[in-house]
């Protein structure tokens, strides 16, 4: 592991603390992605608090972007709604500040690079950290382009979470693991975000391959929406990340209150499966 990563790992955020608790209880964590500002930042605040109440361990706040190349139709539409409502990165950081007054849940800002770049890396990091964010995940940034980004985020004690994909070679997995702090996010399949019925057969092997390169907790996301998928992943990963399934609940709900209730119900269902699933340490993997 690189010197940079080792040093960064000594700073523990709410993310690391939460994963330690989960490890102790042998429970699969639930990472909940919500597009911030869909349909308004006020609604997102209510929805996030309901998600936390229902058992979400980490909240990923999606920063809407005009050109979300890694996202499927559900999150594309959510981003469009959020942008139509005037959501900006600065507004999302203000939302973190508002949430921090009410909850101690770990919060990751999940963004494409350009909005962060336009705010300026230093301005973004200091404002996000001051607001109470714990980590940053940039969808279209890989370790190769992330030198300055990592240095600045580390200075502000923000975890840098990177994505690993089924196409990532061992060499790339090592690079990604070394650049990541907080947790490692494994994309379950080649493709964009969006709920799917099944899990790819190669997924367990992919997670095992990643574990060779990191002792960080591993979250698996993209295409996860069902309790049965969560149960299976209980034996494999440390957390599941759920996004489009929650965003779809918000899209179809007829009011903010109903959106918050629907998201909470979905999380309870998944969390229930996570608690009953086989914990990684019990499984003979």
């Amino acid at each position, binding site marked *: 592991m690189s010197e940079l990563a080792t040093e960064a790992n000594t700073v523990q955020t709410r993310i690391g603390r939460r994963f330690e608790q989960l490890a102790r209880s042998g429970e699969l964590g639930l990472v909940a992605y919500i597009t911030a500002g869909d349909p308004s930042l006020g609604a997102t605040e209510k929805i996030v608090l309901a998600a936390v109440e229902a058992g979400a361990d980490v909240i990923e706040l999606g920063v809407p972007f005009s050109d979300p190349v890694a996202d499927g139709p559900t999150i594309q539409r959510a981003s469009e709604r959020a942008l139509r409502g005037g959501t900006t990165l600065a507004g999302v950081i203000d939302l973190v500040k508002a949430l921090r007054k009410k909850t101690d849940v770990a919060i990751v800002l999940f963004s494409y690079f350009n*909005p962060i770049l*336009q705010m300026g890396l230093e301005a973004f990091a200091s404002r996000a950290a001051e607001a109470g964010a714990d980590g940053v995940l940039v969808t279209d940034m890989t370790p190769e382009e992330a030198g300055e980004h990592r240095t600045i985020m580390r200075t502000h004690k923000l975890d840098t979470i990177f994505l690993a994909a089924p*196409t990532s070679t061992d060499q790339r997995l090592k690079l990604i693991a070394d650049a990541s702090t907080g947790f490692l996010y494994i994309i379950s399949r*080649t*493709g964009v975000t969006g709920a799917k019925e099944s899990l790819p057969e190669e997924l367990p092997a992919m997670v095992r391959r990643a574990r060779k390169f990191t002792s960080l907790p591993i979250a698996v996301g993209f295409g996860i929406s069902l309790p049965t998928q969560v149960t299976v992943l209980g034996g494999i990963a440390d957390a599941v990340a759920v996004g489009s399934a929650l965003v779809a609940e918000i899209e179809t709900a007829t009011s903010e209150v109903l959106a918050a209730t629907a998201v909470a119900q979905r999380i309870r269902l998944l969390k229930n499966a996570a608690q009953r699933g086989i914990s990684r340490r019990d499984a003979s993997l």
Partner: protein
Amino acid sequence: MSTKMEAVPDARGRFGAYGGRYVPETLMAPLEELERAYNEARADASFQKELDDMLRNFAGRPTPLQFASRLTQHLGGPRIYLKREDLLHTGAHKINNCLGQGLLAARMGKRRVVAETGAGQHGVATATVAARLGLECTVYMGTEDMERQRLNVFRMRLLGAEVIGVDAGSKTLKDAINEAMRDWVTNVHTTHYLLGSVLGAHPYPAMVRDFQSVIGKEARAQILQAEKRLPDWLFACVGGGSNAIGLFNDFLDDDDVKMVGVEAGGRGAGIGEHAARLAAAKGFSGAKPGVLQGTYTYVLQTLDGQVSTTHSVSAGLDYPAVGPEHAWLADRGRAEYTAVGDEDAIEAVKTLARIEGIIPALESAHALAELMHRAPKMKSDQLVILNVSGRGDKDMEILARYV
């Protein structure tokens, strides 16, 4: 005089500060694979031979460098030569790159290609090459572009390609690229993304430039034969910028050859009204360096980093970012970038049609319009090469509204 410019991009795909590789992780290994395959192919004489044969016997290269005697006389300025890429099979320079990448895809064992298209010229060229090489082909096209370039949609379907309309965002080229990238990320094991311009993540900007550089190589030899000296000026339109870089590339070390890239000035200088990314000095607003679709370059965007909509009568120039090498050439002052509005471009189409018997594409007409502005003030011993990057057949429905 000759000043050797440093070789770009560097190993990380950078043209100075611009370029790079900003993509979801799933695409990193495929991009590395593509870069390796391209480097191997480039060093392989049999690949070059096959490409040269296709360029000559399928696409119709070399294209003429025609002395435009009547246009020269009409404008009363420099001696004007036209590089006739409009005479290529499928009607534009796009086929140069499609043949290169198509052969590369086949060499890599990919059975399927996906592409984006704006004006439809790249889509048609991709569909054509896919048919010739026996590859499956899917083309993404904004629904607004499908409407204004209906004939090209029909041509692609006739060639056996699947054309999928994209209804997101501004329903133009940018949105088609987003959707093509989503397809690629999903089908990465079987599919090659045949990107049509000097855009996207490394190695695309360098690879597409190399495949298009045949334009400038030919033009250089042709002008030396005709005039026994290098040209004073090169003019080309710039959407992503592949025809321009294709013409410029072989002249970059020749300090005395001045280069002008012409962007779409649309219907005004305000953000959303144009597609001028590098012509800020001419008063066009909204462009700043940023990251879009895999590369760091000038992007038309809002203050908080959302990519803005663009307008141009020409679908092929209607795009908010520009190839990273152009950003680099602009910063260094090696090439000059300016913009021409819709109406002037349409006037230029009419002029070339009536004076030279050539109907240029609306895209190419932007470069011509800029030359028409400048020519009367230029000396008669000056030599100009204008790249007629494509023919205007596809634009008849649009032109019918104006002419």
